[in-house]
């Protein structure tokens, strides 16, 4: 517990650096949110007024200071486009993304880890090559392309699955699942291969250790050797990878969200970047970084379960 607390404390400087990077980046971007809001209505006075309203007329350092101070109090500010408070939106959007990105990753891990272990177990046999080739073919396809193909097949040709829209699982489980199938599948395809590779290579390493030979020498069955000795000991690096992938896919699902019209965090952020909605972009990136750090912290906290040598 103390460890977790310390790790969170350590995340503070990292988040501060994120804040500086994000803030600087946003102010370097050409384009003016006020102009975009006013559009081609061509009214310099209105633009000036909007700038003032948004606080963009303040010196940058002051803007940064205000933002950070508010952030520390949990106030992410309001959207520059519509004045909505940002944090609730982020939380809602995040829950959407987390639902399908998390499911996808879980599924990918459930498929990929056994695949990897089996491939390592039968290393350099036809089975191994077949599994690896499958994984590689899958990872060689860009996510949005997979998404469009899925839409073409299951949405338009077969009409089995809805193409656009989103129903949250909490509202209507069955329909929610239907809506999730394609985006989840598209993400799984992208994540499967790297997890499988990692699982394979770490299982390969474990398989060469003496205690595996010892387990076999004790007369254990192969199944037991794999499940009880190889799997737990090869899981740690895979888990790390999963942590990084999850952290990333929570923010990076923008592509999938665009293809499947899912109102997730990634899409929210991309829209905000295009609209120069500074506070939203800054808030989202801070939030995603925070989640990334927390997820990886959770992963670290899992290590002692896998390896009693690790003391936190």
């Amino acid at each position: 517990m103390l460890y977790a607390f310390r790790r969170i404390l350590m995340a503070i400087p990292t988040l501060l650096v994120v804040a500086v990077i994000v803030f600087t980046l946003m102010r370097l971007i050409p384009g003016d949110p006020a102009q975009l809001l006013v559009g081609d209505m061509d009214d310099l006075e209105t633009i000036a007024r909007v700038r003032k309203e948004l606080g963009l007329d303040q010196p940058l350092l002051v803007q940064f200071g205000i933002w950070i101070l508010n952030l520390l109090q949990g106030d992410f500010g309001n959207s520059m486009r519509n004045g909505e408070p940002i944090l609730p939106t982020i939380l809602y959007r995040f829950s959407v993304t987390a639902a399908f990105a998390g499911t996808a990753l879980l599924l990918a891990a459930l498929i990929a880890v056994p695949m990897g272990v089996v491939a390592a177990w039968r290393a350099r046999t036809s089975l191994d090559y077949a599994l690896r080739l499958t994984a590689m073919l899958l990872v060689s396809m860009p996510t949005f392309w997979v998404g469009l193909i899925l839409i073409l097949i299951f949405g338009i040709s077969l009409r089995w699955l809805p193409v656009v829209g989103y129903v949250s699982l909490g509202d209507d489980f069955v329909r929610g699942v239907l809506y999730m199938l394609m985006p989840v599948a598209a993400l799984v395809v992208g994540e499967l291969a790297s997890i499988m590779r990692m699982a394979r290579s770490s299982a390969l390493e474990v398989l060469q250790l003496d205690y595996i030979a010892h387990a076999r020498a004790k007369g254990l069955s192969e199944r037991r050797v794999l499940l009880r000795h190889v799997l737990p000991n090869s899981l740690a690096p895979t888990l790390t990878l999963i942590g990084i992938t999850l952290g990333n896919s929570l923010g990076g699902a923008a592509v999938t969200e665009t293809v499947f019209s899912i109102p997730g965090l990634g899409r929210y952020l991309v829209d905000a970047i295009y609209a120069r909605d500074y506070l939203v972009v800054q808030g989202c990136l801070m939030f995603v970084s925070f989640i990334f750090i927390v997820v990886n912290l959770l992963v670290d906290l899992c290590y002692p379960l896998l390896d009693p040598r690790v003391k936190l």
Partner: protein
Amino acid sequence: EDAMPVAGGSLAIALTTDIQGINPGVTRDGNTDAVINHVAEGLVAYKEDGSVGLLGAKSLSVSEDGLSYTFTLRDGMTFHNGAPVTSAEVKWSWDRLLNEQTGWRCRSWFVPGGDVVIQSIDTPDAQTIVFNLVEPTAIFLPKMANHQCIGPILHPDSIGADGKFLTPIATGPYKLAEWKQGEYVILERFEGYVANTDPKSGFAGDRTPYIDSLKFMVVPDAAVAKAALLAGDVQLSREFTPNDLTELETKDGLKVYSSDSFNWKLLLFNRKDGLFTDVNLRQAITEAIDIDEVAQIMSNGLAKGNPSAVPLLSNFHTSVQDQRPAFDPANAKAHAEDADYTGETLKIMTNRRFQDDYDTSLIVQEQLKRAGFNVELEVVEWATQDDAYYAGGYQMMVYSYSPRTEPYLSFELVSDTKPDTAKAHEIVSDEFTALLRQAATTLDTAGRQAAFDAMHRVLIEDLPGASLYNPAVVSASTDRLMGYSEFGVGHPRLWGIWLAE
């Protein structure tokens, strides 16, 4: 098609981006306007040909001196909460709009410093409302009817006690039922809607709703929007280019709509940038562009080029407006030489947000190359281009103006009265300013036409940009949808339509 309308059913419509908000005329952009237009109404609105028609008002009279406009409210007009609409609410609405705190996007048009200054708003009786202006102008009604500003009539309960906007309690054929941010907006039919007796035209006239509920779904990607229509997830999708027409027409179960529009696409020149200060170069480039070919390709043969600020759809578009420096690559070369152009790389700024801007610039680039210019595209992100539009920092850019039905508003876009606030492409000339004023203050049509013609002549000589064409609006729906059509302002009109069976 001639069948009698039937009420009921629901319709899903694809929307590229989420709406910005629900405060009519305040939180807005194109998509927001398209949705909110069904919820909130003003006194007047644009008709099919771009002229101003009646909506909230059943009649309108203008005083001899052109200073006071008297509107009589439509019979049986009620708010979504059931309260009848009286002139008091209209005045309240306008007072609110003109208050700086409200943040109405069009406020500056109507207050001192703007083109039209409202002096006072009177309410002689419950059904009558009078707008008194400071000086006579031809553009009061066009500005009042503007679809971006809406000039919404709202019930005071729309605003909370703390002055915060709550929800639009308005007078439109549809009520806001649910807005799930980032996902969809659902509008429900307003049962108590009593329509204007004028026939449906543009946004004006009869707006009787039939379909029970409208669901605007956010579908960010155009390719997916098309897929969603084909898959039946949405029944109306409007994110098409004319190039999609031929394909969509062959699909079973679909209907395809297209219309010319009041949108205006042009190649702007930065007259403050080096070579482009020389009008000869601007002219050379204009002569090197075959706007008809551009329009042909971009509209798949539907449209022709428009060299003028006055849209082809507009009644003010006469043969004078068709004049331009003729397409003549040979001449272009000569003019380029006059401008001391010696093969420097010229840049066209464009963006990828709007696929037709991008494609148009590719075509223009190709044409200019053929005429011997060395042209590169500078593809930037939309917001960056928009910034450059205001701040300069480009040579040429393909730019689209949203629909302007009133030519005065279009000409305004390429000129400025003050040199210090002028944008890089704008004409700053007293002559032009005078003509603009003439177009605004002259009330009779012939006089205005003369002003527009004169301005066009300046435009094709001074060349703030090369006007290209008015992009077409293309959409498609399920063939069960009846009574739907597109019109030049480009927003969907989902009243007066119904679902067969």
